[in-house]
């Protein structure tokens, strides 16, 4: 493998990758006379189109991706991103539409937003959705703002938000930006929210509980209705982190479990590509009582005529420059329309089947802290391998050599040395087996040949990277 140099290192004076047509209006040199004009940008790249194409072609090949193999990164729902979705999102009249167009010129776009809203309402059992949130975390923030606005309207925004110890890090962070203090709720032995702890902590100062269902262990919060009752009985609201909705489509609906507000990740459950870190889309759904607070503008329709409505005096306001990630919405709608009711259910069922197949196949080799049944994902740990001084990181890096993507390790924090594994429904048995066999091989190697794990990855574009050095001596941009 030859490392691809930085573009700045192949740049040379006078090389060109693009040319604009000649200026066709009379040039007025004096236009810049009284405005602050910059000097030449030192070291800004100068390369040919071929050099750019090679650069990014080679860089692209240094990435692992769904299109290359199984990607069982837990909590991320790395399912296949259908190519037709990409194609429809490139239709000229979508991509060239200015967001300030008069609604009469963009009826198609508005209808698409409205259609997807209707579908998500049906899938989740909520009453209305906004598409402004750009990703899951912004959805959480909007959700908490809605709750706060609602409670404020009732007289008291309250102070606390309860969050299970198994939650994703964005949950407490979002609650915090919304002005709430976070209290952690313990998980019980089965890995679900400890109702006793919830009851103990729930009071009139608590605005909401943020619950993930199925939770980040892949376990369904079977007492969610009871939990919701506890919260509601004290005047609080229930927020559901819908990142794991891929387990539930057509099976059960958050709206039927006492959930007041939910966010979805279109870039997980609804197959829109993750793009190496976005753009995502984190639509937020609410029950009727919270609808007045949704961000504006909202899409309304009279018959088949669609309009943008800002007349919501109680709205929390605007959270995105325009209407959120329209092109991502297009892709998600294409996905839902492609699968239909049976396909969505089949997707969830198969996601759960695949996950349980992995769980069962590896339960001898890898420790499972929580034994409760799991749905779309399960969280192993490195406990057995730790005896041989092998950590989840070593396991992950060795998986890279074995040509599969490692599971998630950064959370849930309640499982030490976590290996959170979510295969999704689109994987073939052969690819599931590739992962299972690699994991089994690693377990054997932990005992017999730990060095090969410690020194992994060996066959990757770079060897194991020094993260500590990166943080201690930050080099965050190229300099000549």
């Amino acid at each position: 493998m030859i490392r691809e140099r930085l573009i700045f290192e192949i740049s040379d004076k006078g090389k060109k990758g693009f040319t604009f047509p000649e200026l066709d209006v009379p040039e007025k040199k004096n236009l810049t006379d009284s405005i602050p004009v910059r000097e030449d940008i030192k070291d800004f790249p100068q390369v040919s189109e071929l050099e750019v194409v090679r650069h990014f072609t080679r860089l692209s090949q240094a990435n692992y991706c769904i299109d290359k193999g199984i990607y069982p990164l837990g909590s991320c729902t790395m399912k296949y991103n259908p190519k037709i979705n990409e194609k429809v999102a490139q239709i000229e009249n979508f991509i060239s539409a200015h967001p300030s167009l008069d609604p009469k010129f963009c009826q198609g776009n508005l209808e698409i937003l409205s259609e997807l809203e209707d579908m998500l309402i049906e899938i989740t059992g909520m009453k209305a959705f906004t598409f402004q949130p750009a990703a899951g975390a912004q959805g959480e923030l909007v959700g908490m703002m809605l709750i706060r606005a609602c409670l404020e309207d009732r007289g008291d925004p309250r102070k606390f938000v309860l969050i299970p110890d198994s939650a994703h890090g964005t949950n407490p962070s979002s609650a915090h930006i919304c002005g709430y203090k976070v209290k952690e709720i313990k998980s019980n032995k089965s890995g679900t929210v400890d109702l006793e702890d919830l009851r103990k902590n729930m009071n009139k100062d608590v605005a909401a509980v943020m619950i993930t269902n199925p939770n980040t262990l892949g376990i369904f919060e079977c007492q969610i209705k009871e939990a919701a009752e506890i919260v509601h009985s004290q005047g609080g609201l229930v927020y559901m982190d819908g990142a794991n909705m891929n387990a539930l489509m057509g099976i059960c609906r958050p709206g039927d479990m006492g959930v007041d507000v939910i966010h979805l990740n279109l870039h997980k459950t609804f197959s829109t590509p993750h793009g190496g870190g976005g753009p995502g889309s984190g639509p937020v759904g609410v029950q009727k009582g919270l609808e007045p607070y949704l961000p504006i503008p909202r899409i309304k329709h009279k018959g088949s005529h669609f309009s943008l409505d800002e007349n919501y005096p109680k709205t929390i306001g605007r959270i995105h420059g325009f209407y959120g990630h329209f092109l991502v919405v297009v892709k998600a709608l294409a996905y839902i329309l492609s699968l239909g009711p049976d396909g969505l259910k089949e997707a969830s069922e198969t996601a759960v089947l695949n996950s349980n197949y992995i769980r069962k196949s590896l339960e001898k080799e890898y420790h499972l802290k929580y034994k409760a049944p799991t749905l779309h994902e399960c969280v192993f740990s490195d406990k057995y391998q730790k005896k041989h001084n092998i950590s989840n990181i070593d396991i992950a890096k060795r998986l890279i050599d074995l040509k599969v993507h490692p599971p998630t390790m950064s959370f849930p924090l309640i499982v030490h040395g976590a290996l959170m594994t979510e295969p999704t429904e689109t994987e073939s048995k052969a690819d599931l087996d590739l992962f299972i066999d690699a994991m089994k091989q690693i377990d054997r190697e932990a005992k017999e040949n730990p060095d090969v794990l410690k020194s992994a990855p060996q066959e990757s574009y770079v060897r194991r990277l020094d993260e500590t050095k990166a943080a201690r001596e930050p080099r965050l941009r190229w300099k000549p």
Partner: protein
Amino acid sequence: MSYISLSQKDKKEMLKVIGASSPQELFDSIPDDIKLKRKLKIPKAKTEPEIMEYFNQMAHKNKNNEYICFQGAGAYRHFIPAAVDYLSSRGEFVSPYTPYQAEVSQGTLQLIFEFQTLICQLTGMEISNASLYDGASGTAEAVLMASRINRKSKILVPKTLHPHYREVIKTYTKNLDMDIQEIKYDDSGQISMTELKKHLDKETSAVLCQSPNYFGVIENLDKISSLAHENKVLSIAVVTEASSLGLLKPPGEQGADIVTGEAQSFGIPLSFGGPYLGFMACQKEFLRQFPGRISGETKDVNGNQGFVLTLSTREQHIRRERATSNICTNQALCALRATIFLELLGKNGLRQWSWQNLQKANYAYDLLKGIKGVKSPFSGKVYNEFVIQTEKDWADIEKGLMKKKIIPGISLEKYYPELKKCGLVCVTEVSQKQDLDRFAEQFKEILSA
């Protein structure tokens, strides 16, 4: 269409391994009373040809392709080289997750590192992050960041800042005990220095300055920053039209402490408003309060260069509620587009690009101002957008021009009732002289009608 890759045989074998008789059984942990007992009421599955047809029909309901459009105001029509589309649509960029596993994500990590460098070069700042959602939320994040830095809560927001950005700032700060004060503009269309001085004091955390501002007018950022710094106030520069960075003095050289904004102009299509590309850059001293992901250079065990997501102790995975932001998924693929776009244009192309935007917009500005009955309410210098005023209501102008298949720009009435007879017009490099001439002619005709 189903995207499942299992055969019936596979399913059976797998169920046998699991010891279940059906996939449904695997959902036994869900209480029966919350299970959905019916089919979802959504249309039955469509096949690919039907999907194609459906979306073609939707696109057909849009009429934008029939019009020449001079709308800007935070979303800009620029040419996108074919190589941007091709390279950014490669599955290896489109289909991975956030690069948590650095060794198999060097493509994404290196391109982000290059993106960060380009943003630093363009803004004249020392560090940049990997992206934020968009210009509006980026600006809100900058406000929060400033407040974390100096633990003050008063923010001065000029009315020349994009109204949507002002709204998003309000939404983000509403629950955080902050004091957002709006600063008026003057006859030049710039932030009124008198007003600014009136509001600026030691309690102030930061003053924001968008340049070119919402009216297309280039602000005196240098002066504003100086004023801010005299009062130990942070200067936050906001850029909504990133193409201007190729021509205007970089905010970093005009005293900005934080630069944020929207980089949609860098190779990202209008797309009805999203996904776009928020960016943020700042000086090194503020690194610890800086939000968002960052790619950093390091070495592997062989001593070879490589890149990792770094300084993640600022982020929510580790720091949870004390994170510098809740942002997780950001706009990586849009940052890729911007990176390819900028690297293709290169130093000379970038300059040429900005220059043409300046020239063409000012050509149109002059043409329109030359029409009897048209004047310019503001005296400030403009980049590629400008405000014009007529005797008629803008809505009438609009109606007339639309009949000629021209969308003349954006009405200012909604956010600036005092500018009811004004419109905001944007002209970029994609407009040809003949279009501008026709625009002016039609404009004239309507005014004289």
